């Protein structure tokens, strides 16, 4: 079955419905990338899913990216897929340093654990999520480890003696 819509149609239809709220379409490595704000993301996902000719019925992935040097420090990235047209679309939502965004669980059930993972590593609060708690890290953890301010090696550890390998343990005397 041949595709009904292509990227151009998708951009047009989103433009008719959302106007300037969904902006800066790009096409890096052949995947349509759009930007929107946190108030439009859920209606946008719903619109793309329910439109009879587009049918982006599959949520491939949700993840976040931390940009400490930008004004909007976080970005939540959604990848959705239309099997009917074999199109993938990436939607980015920039967020402030106190990241909050509505949950997509009501649109795609599989968003549940993806959002929990994103919260776990970046501290993005998904408002309205049924069970927003840590998933891969321990519950007692107080930081969000994938943020860029946390180094790969934990400087508070004292059980590692790496002085032979040129690494300095800052918390140890001598």
């Amino acid at each position, binding site marked *: 079955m041949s595709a009904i819509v292509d990227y151009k149609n998708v951009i047009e239809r989103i433009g008719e419905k959302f106007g300037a709220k969904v902006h800066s379409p790009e096409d890096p*490595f052949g*995947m349509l990338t759009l930007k929107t704000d946190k108030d439009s993301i859920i209606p946008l996902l719903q619109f793309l899913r329910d439109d009879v000719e587009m049918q982006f019925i599959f949520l491939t992935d949700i993840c976040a990216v931390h940009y400490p040097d930008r004004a909007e420090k976080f970005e939540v990235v959604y990848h959705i897929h239309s099997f009917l047209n074999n199109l993938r679309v990436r939607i980015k939502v920039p967020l402030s340093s106190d990241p909050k965004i509505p949950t997509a669980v009501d649109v795609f059930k599989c968003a549940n*654990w993806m959002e929990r993972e994103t919260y776990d590593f970046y501290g993005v609060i998904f408002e309205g999520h049924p069970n927003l708690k840590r998933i*891969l890290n321990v519950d007692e953890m107080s930081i969000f*480890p*994938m943020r860029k301010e946390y180094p790969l090696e934990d400087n508070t550890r004292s059980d590692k003696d790496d002085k032979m390998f040129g690494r300095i343990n800052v918390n140890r005397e001598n």
Partner: protein
Amino acid sequence: MMSKPQNIKHASDLVEKQTITLNIGPTHPATHGVFQNVVEIDGERIVSGDSTIGYIHRAFEKIAEHRPFYQVTPLTDRLNYCSSPINNMGWHMTVEKLLGIIVPKRAQYLRVIIMELARISDHIVCNSVIGVDTGALTGFTYVFQWREKIYEIFEEICGARLTTNIGRVGGLERDFNDIAFKKLESFLKDFPKGWKEFENLLVRNRIFMDRTRTVPVTAEFALQYGFTGPNLRATGVDYDVRVMSPYSSYEDFDFKIPVGTKGDTYDRFMVRNQEIWESLKIIRQALDKLPDGPYHADAPQFYLPPKQEVYNNMEALIYHFKIVMGEIDAPKGEVYHSVEGANGELGFYLISDGGRAAYRLHFRRPCFIYYQAFTEMVKGCLLSDAIVAMSSMNIIAGELDA
């Protein structure tokens, strides 16, 4: 599907709860990996459940932000460790997409052969373990010799067996040698007979069918919960990354996508069985059509030169030094690439800011996404069916926890 009350007479003023809380895992032989399910059971039926995962989380995404691209390959080995070569090559193809490297046809065909072998070995493990969980240990003990044969081929190609670290960005580290081809031919000759034996044992086995025609999943449910791979195809959706967005020359081969109808445990088992036959067809075609030519792309800035060259050739020495010391920057950009892993769509979302390492790398791990449906799927089912359903979903703890 909510359970009927059991035939136990409770006093009318009973304050004790009438269900039993049962822990399956974290280290339980039935979970085949380290993860936990806490289920409430009423008699033999599951009322509700909750999954806890993360016991072997190893922070791969964080590590990947600090390592050059070629050092991420061993991390991908440890995602779905039953079919590491698929992960390795998926990662290499992602980087090649970012760098714009075109891999020669021969390398693409060799990759297809390796990936299909890995798929077969993964399906052998999963399907024989479904047999084990229904009480048929015999099949498992017999078909593991075929996995061993596949590992011997891997050993011949790259020197490793389970966590293979096979190939490099730009192609393969070496061509197949004659022994590898010989072993491959003898595998293709003998394996169908062995696998037929296994199928005869289970496919029309009354006891096995009674045990596995349980825990059905509808296509709508599967799509809502992000199922991919054999689990999605068992529900009747013919989504396969190899066909929808072909990579590594999959479009050159003639093969079918097997689909199921009911999405129950039996369908998942049968889809995998059928995929093994299709994989064998792909390997046969790739071997027959295998083109001559180089086994890696000419990308000296990213492809580690052979050690022989490094010792004898100035240029190779320079590039080796530059690659190992991390002096070559990748271009800016962001790319999503996915491959059909043995248990679903394995995706890599790579953001490069122009440095030597990834700015952000996210693994779309198929079983992390579909495992959340498990407790919902088994609601109202018998406990013993839930165990079989769990192994039929092919959950790999390493991939679950990243």
